[in-house]
């Protein structure tokens, strides 16, 4: 049940794309919801249905809680990030996102109830790097964290907040990109 060889493209309705971008912009603006981790980074889950060789995104699930500094997850993240993250002046404890297990269980339950498959997770890159001004591809850290996940990593470039873009990479591997088409599916016309 790996999508890598079975999928040609991912269809994203414009309304779902707008939901994703609204989530990113809200977090960047520091407008946090009750119970939401107060960090200016957005993390979420995309789910939907597979029809033939196309994945149709039908549900955007913003994830509220970053369990990054909760043990034992903190130790795991610190270890992985120390080894693989690009050096930064931002303290380690303020970098990276790992889902709260209970919240994730709720997301899985919701998708099962709705008969939706989880396609992957999204997060944004906001700072341009030397030689990588757009930041629309996974970092080494993204690849390590997505290893064996059987999920797509959706990377949103928010470097230019007025011109965001998103790409999908199976298990966060840069040469396993599947194109995303942002358009309304004919079956949704009515």
């Amino acid at each position, binding site marked *: 049940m790996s999508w890598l060889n079975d999928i040609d493209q991912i269809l994203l309705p414009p309304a779902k794309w707008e939901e994703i971008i609204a989530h990113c912009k809200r977090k960047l603006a520091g407008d946090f919801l009750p119970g939401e981790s107060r960090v200016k980074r957005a993390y979420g889950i995309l789910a939907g249905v597979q029809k033939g060789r196309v994945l149709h995104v039908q549900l955007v699930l913003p994830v509220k809680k970053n369990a990054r500094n909760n043990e034992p997850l903190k130790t795991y993240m610190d270890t992985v990030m120390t080894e693989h993250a690009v050096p930064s002046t931002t303290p380690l404890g303020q970098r990276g996102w790992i889902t709260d297990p209970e919240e*994730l269980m709720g997301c*899985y339950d919701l998708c099962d109830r709705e008969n939706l498959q989880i396609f992957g997770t999204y997060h944004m890159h906001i700072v341009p790097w030397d030689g990588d001004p757009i930041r629309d591809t996974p970092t080494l850290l993204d690849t390590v*964290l997505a290893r064996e996940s059987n*999920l797509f990593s959706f990377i949103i470039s928010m470097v230019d907040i007025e011109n965001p873009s998103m790409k999908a990479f199976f298990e966060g591997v840069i040469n396993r990109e599947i194109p995303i088409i942002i358009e309304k599916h004919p079956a949704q016309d009515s």
Partner: protein
Amino acid sequence: MATIIIPFPFRKYTDKHREVTLTGETLAEILDALLKQYSGLHVIHDHPGLLSIFINGKSINGGVDQWNEITVTDSDEISLIIPIAGG
């Protein structure tokens, strides 16, 4: 006996089954039976600190050494959750 809910990313190891019903009196016995039936699920032990177990939606505290002491019943639903992470 109890029912184990397989998280979506791991269903590739369980022939796409969402749930698996297994015989056992304790959590340890149930998980042993699960791994014997679906050997690919041994990946849950790749990062032991990441695995969270819920029984009927309630988090189970304690590590592997305590799984032998947790009894399960036919009506129990066990969820295995490994958090997903990003940079």
